[in-house]
């Protein structure tokens, strides 16, 4: 039997059968996620799968069945993820959201999770449409794109990645549900990064948003994707075996000693420049394209737990003698 670094088979990382539509991009993401979790060697009992409400938010049931899951309320997963990570810093908190859950009802919590740099992986399965309520626009729908019945979206779009960078996010990537080659190493880098890792994954909705007027259909995505870099994930102490031409690779060191190597694809791009990232996002959107790759990384920034100077022991494990005021200091509290 083939096993991963911590001796577990791939089956351990599987979950219940999906209940989403056949052909849904989210199912592909789940499969890439299973691969990434397996290859990374994530410890199942230390994984906390968190989500909000919507099609995307059902997916935590479809991988690593033995891990704890928390399917919360609509748009509020970031706060629950924040609380869970504060309570037990040993957990790998993996949040899965959608474009409605993140960019509409949950926009406030999304923003403040990023500001705090909560150490978690935050995936947006982005299809530009509300699936469970049958096909209304979400706030990531491009201006001018249409619903299945032809109704155009009149309002400006919210760019999950652009917003994240503006808010000070420390790891921002965009990918496509159909591109496992790019997505799996990005996910692994996100697992390794300490701080909020945003992954905006375009994930076409075959039922409500795969038509001609959509800019999130399989056909549109395939025609308009601009890949800015191709990532390779190199774990700590692992040797780099592939030869890269000098000047074609940007290396980003992650906090746990692993690295992500970004092979430059289209043009010279610096994934550590916030300005370059924002320009690229704006330029590609102007041109009706969408850019994928690791758009921005700022490693070594203290996460929430570090800023709060939390003890190494998980807070949940602290006992009476570590938490109560000592008996000897008690009486002094009651003097007028």
């Amino acid at each position, binding site marked *: 039997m083939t096993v991963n670094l911590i001796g577990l088979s791939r089956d351990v990382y599987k979950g219940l059968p999906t209940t989403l539509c056949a052909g849904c991009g989210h199912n592909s993401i789940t499969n890439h996620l299973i691969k990434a979790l397996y290859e990374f060697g994530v410890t*199942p*009992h*230390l994984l*906390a799968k*968190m989500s909000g409400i919507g099609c995307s938010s059902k997916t*935590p*049931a479809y991988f690593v*069945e*033995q*891990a*704890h*899951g*928390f*399917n*919360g*309320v609509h748009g*509020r*997963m*970031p*706060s*629950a*993820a*924040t*609380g*869970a*990570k*504060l*309570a*037990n810093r*040993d*957990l790998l908190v993996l949040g899965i959201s959608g474009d409605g859950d993140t960019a509409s009802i949950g926009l*406030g*919590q999304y*923003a*403040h999770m990023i500001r*705090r740099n909560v150490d978690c992986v935050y995936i947006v399965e982005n299809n530009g449409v509300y699936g469970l309520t049958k096909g209304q626009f979400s706030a990531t729908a491009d201006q001018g794109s249409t619903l299945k019945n032809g109704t155009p979206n009149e309002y400006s779009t919210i760019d999950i990645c652009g917003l994240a960078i503006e808010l000070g996010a420390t790891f921002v990537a965009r990918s496509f549900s159909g591109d496992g080659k790019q997505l799996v190493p990005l996910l692994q880098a996100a697992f390794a990064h300490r701080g909020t890792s945003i992954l905006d994954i375009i994930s076409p909705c075959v039922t409500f948003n795969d038509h001609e007027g959509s800019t999130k259909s399989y056909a549109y995505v395939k025609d308009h994707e601009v890949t800015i870099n191709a990532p390779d994930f190199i774990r700590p102490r692992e040797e780099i075996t592939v030869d890269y031409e000098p000047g074609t690779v940007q290396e980003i060191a992650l906090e746990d000693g692993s690295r992500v190597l970004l092979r430059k694809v289209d043009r010279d791009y610096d994934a550590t420049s916030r300005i370059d990232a924002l320009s690229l996002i704006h330029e590609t959107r102007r041109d009706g394209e969408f850019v994928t790759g690791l758009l921005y990384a700022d490693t070594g920034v203290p996460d*929430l*737990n570090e800023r*709060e*100077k*939390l*003890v190494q022991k*998980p*807070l*949940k*494990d*602290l006992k*009476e003698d*570590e*938490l*109560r*005021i000592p*008996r000897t*200091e*008690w*009486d002094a*509290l*009651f*003097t*007028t």
Partner: protein
Amino acid sequence: MQQRVTNDFTIRVATVNGSGSQSSNLVLTNAIFRLGIPVAPKNVFPSNIEGLPTWFDVRISSRGYQCRTRDVDVLVALNPATWRTDIAGVKAGGAVIHEASYPIAGESQRGDVVYYAVPFNELAKANFSDGALRKYLLNMIYVGIVGELLGISEADVEAAIAAQFKRKAKAAATNVEAARIGYTYAREQLTKTDRFTLERITGKTDGLSFMDGNRAAALGCIMGGCTVAAWYPITPSSSLCESFISLADKYRTDSQTGERRVAIVQAEDELAAIGMVLGAGWAGARAMTSTSGPGISLMAEWAGYGYYAEVPAVIFDVQRAGPSTGLPTRTMQGDVSFAYTLSHGDTKHIVLLPATVQEAYTMAMDAFDLADRFQTPIFVLSDLDLGMNPWMTQALPYPRRPFDRGKVLREKDLDKLEKWGRYRDVDKDGVPYRTLPGTNHARAGYFTRGTGHDEEARYSELPDVWQRNLDRLIKKHETARLAVPQPLVEGHGHPLAILAYGTTHHAVTEARDILERLGIETDYMRVRALPFSPDVAAFVARHERVYVVEQNRDGQLYGLLRVELPDHLISRIHSIRHYNGVPIDAHAIVDPLLQAEREPAVVAE
């Protein structure tokens, strides 16, 4: 001089918000307390930083009554804007100490009160060159005037100033100087013609000190093992989390490394605050948030999630006057029925109802035990009166028992079990077993969700499964009836009774004494939690008439009683309600109760 009134009267200080009068008011309170006389300060303040009127009542009560009184005996008038109405509020035979420049004419001219005109502004100007400090020191001058007129020694005032400005020796010295100016002026320029005096007594305040309910609750959080707090600032609850922060800085921070055994997050709103608390509670930490009515409104959705997914959480609601923004700096018992059933669908919470500083502390600790034990959000409903006013209190007891972390299965427990189901009612008490994320066992994990689920935490829409789960949840609620703080009863065998909860207690105490003097004896039950203990129905059954007293317009607890009492007892309960934003006083109970007793038909509902 008329007959002397000693140690039983009320001083009202009327000032402008932002003038620093709070320090002077607390010094006065503390100085009187140093004479061994029980005092009950009530701060009636505006929702404003500077400029609006504010009043501070110091009730001096040899019997130790801690509720507000309507009577103002001694007025210190330092706000020209309210001068006329403040004068009108003084009881006949009272005394008025006022800024000399205020006009005494027309409605401010009364023949039944004594006036002491004091040139506060001139005194402050002549003695303090720093213009910015002057307005603060002016207030300390009044303390000296009052001290001299009522008979507080300068030494007691100086000791109170030293206590107030503990770490600021320079400020203390300047304030002592200001108080002395008051003493000197009163001695030299004023002739006492009022009837109010203070005399040192013993045996009434032994072991007591001042504390507000919010700080007591924060101490309960520290001693109850709270490690995650998330909050959004809102009056009147902010000082609960701020007290928690200052206690955590001192007692939860390693003095060498600076590492902290607590996480406190100022959230972006109350939706996030309760979300963080539930996330932390799910992951096994003891977590709390504190808020007031508007925050409770925002927490409704998550509250239902916590109830249905069965996640521990502690929510302090320091109630203020609503609806809407309402009166943010005034008090109310306005969230009782809302909190009890907070969220859509079939939701019912455990609600604790502290009345005293002691209970603000003990019930905070109880709340964390109950949250873990019942795996559900626990609401602690304090109010502005309890939370923000200083109350005399005995030293809080050091906790004797360890935390009750409830039914949590660890690795070794799971090893022994062939199967376990997150929502199975193994013990037939409605309370299931849970595991925490991070438990190193292949069968530890389960999927927590607000959607329909079966005993194994699997998604389910089956009618039987849904109903079975709701039935188990209400069984859990029934189990809680005897686990929550039980009601307290005073008096026995009288046909007439009063039932109240929270800070209304203090007015009931005085009201029962007044009624007794009028020949009407009452029994009294104080409800301390929801769901109701079985004792509540038994108490109603033992009495002919039970007056349910509370501080809201619609009789919220009365309404809950009408729903939960057996039909034949409903006609025995009658509602007395107080809802003007200031804390209830004894007459708000005595007057309607007497009227109802005289004209029973009028109030029969």
